[in-house]
């Protein structure tokens, strides 16, 4: 017998109600039930960070949460950031710095960095070491990270007069 629960949550601001088997992860729920396939699965054991989403504003591995645990929560995914025609400042900086290559880890990176940038917005600009520590929970095999670090520095240290 499948153990089914009805969950109600908001995803990128939109109310969602679905019946879901309890063993389904939040990541699979987003991908398969909601067809929000921007959240990627790279390891399903909580190491790579590709599935990172924001749950009530805090970054979480969507492979280590059950969909039923998100009942009542506000979930944000990469699809809730800017659009291709209107990238947000972080996405724009990632593009300008070539902060991605294959793009598979990118959605998780963006969500981790979204949390960081939103928390840091009114603080002094972070050091490179701090940014690297924030990124340490997301693995990228393509870029070697440096261009991602540069993108974050550009967002949080805009040249005078910008942003």
């Amino acid at each position, binding site marked *: 017998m499948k153990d089914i629960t009805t969950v109600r949550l908001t995803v990128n601001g939109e109310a969602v109600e679905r019946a879901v088997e309890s063993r389904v992860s939040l990541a699979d729920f987003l991908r398969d039930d909601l067809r929000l396939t921007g959240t990627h699965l790279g390891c399903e054991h909580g190491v790579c960070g590709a599935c990172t989403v924001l749950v009530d504003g805090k970054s*979480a591995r969507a492979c280590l949460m059950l969909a039923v645990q998100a009942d009542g929560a506000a979930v944000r995914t990469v699809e809730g950031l800017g659009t291709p025609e209107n990238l947000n400042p972080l996405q724009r900086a990632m593009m300008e710095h070539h902060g991605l290559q294959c793009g598979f880890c990118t959605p998780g990176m963006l969500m981790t960095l979204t949390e960081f940038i939103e928390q840091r917005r009114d603080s002094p600009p972070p050091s490179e070491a701090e940014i690297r520590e924030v990124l340490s929970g997301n693995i990228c095999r393509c870029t070697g990270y440096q261009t991602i670090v540069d993108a974050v520095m550009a967002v949080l240290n805009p040249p005078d007069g910008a942003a």
Partner: protein
Amino acid sequence: MKPAPFKYHAPRTTGDALRLLADNGDACVLAGGQSLMPMLNFRLLAPAHVIDLNRVPALAGIRVEQNVLHVGAMTRQGDLETSSVVRDAAPLLQAAVRQVGHRQTRNRGTLGGSLCHLDPAAELVTAAMAMDATLIAESAGGGTRRIPIAAWSAGYLTNALRPGEMLTAIEFPLWRGAQGHGFVEFARRKGDFAIIGVATLLAFDAAGTIARAAVAIGGCGPLPQRPAAVEQALIGQRPSAPLFKEAARLAATIEAHSDAHVRADYRRHLARVLTERALAEAANRVHDAGHGASQ
């Protein structure tokens, strides 16, 4: 890597959680999920029931009362990290939690979850060992058992909870007076479980000699160890680099295990090296603490 089927329960109160635990033999308790969920995904565990504690608000919280720091088992690691109460009362715990995993895992992971999972080198277990923590286990029907951290292990990755028991809170007795803390670990990468982690607490008398010492070494066995010889060598002495070097030498004699990645002799070597560093760190940040009640 999808979990096997299970029946999911989301109790709202500690009592409901305990009743579910009593009623369902083949159950796992889901706290932050940062260790349990990977094991479910790998199907290393396939319980018939999962009891989720994330909707039991009473299980989370941080407070100091009568010189004891009380932390609810479901308190998030991220909340320990940013808590001013923890910062003032138990900076060792905060130093330890900063080394746990990554931001995303600390946002979900809990103190109780880490203690129950009982990875041999888990930072929070090592800190709890140095602080002589007491673990509060409750069971349905009002049973409560106070388990000293030294008795918390029943084997590798196995805690001392009995069937039907659940860890609900952790108490950390606080030291008074001039004291310092050190937490030094060696992990392959940022956020990895340590190979060896060492937590130290030193208390000083008015003359500046070491009145009390706690040294906990994690990663050498199922539970962090408190090498009595090291602590004894410190007490009554004035802090100095030579003293710490000699005391740390005694740490190299503790028991350790080998696995596919790390040999026992390297663990003992690291125990010595990191003990010396953690003692120096403790001596370098002495502060005076008098703990009243705080919220």
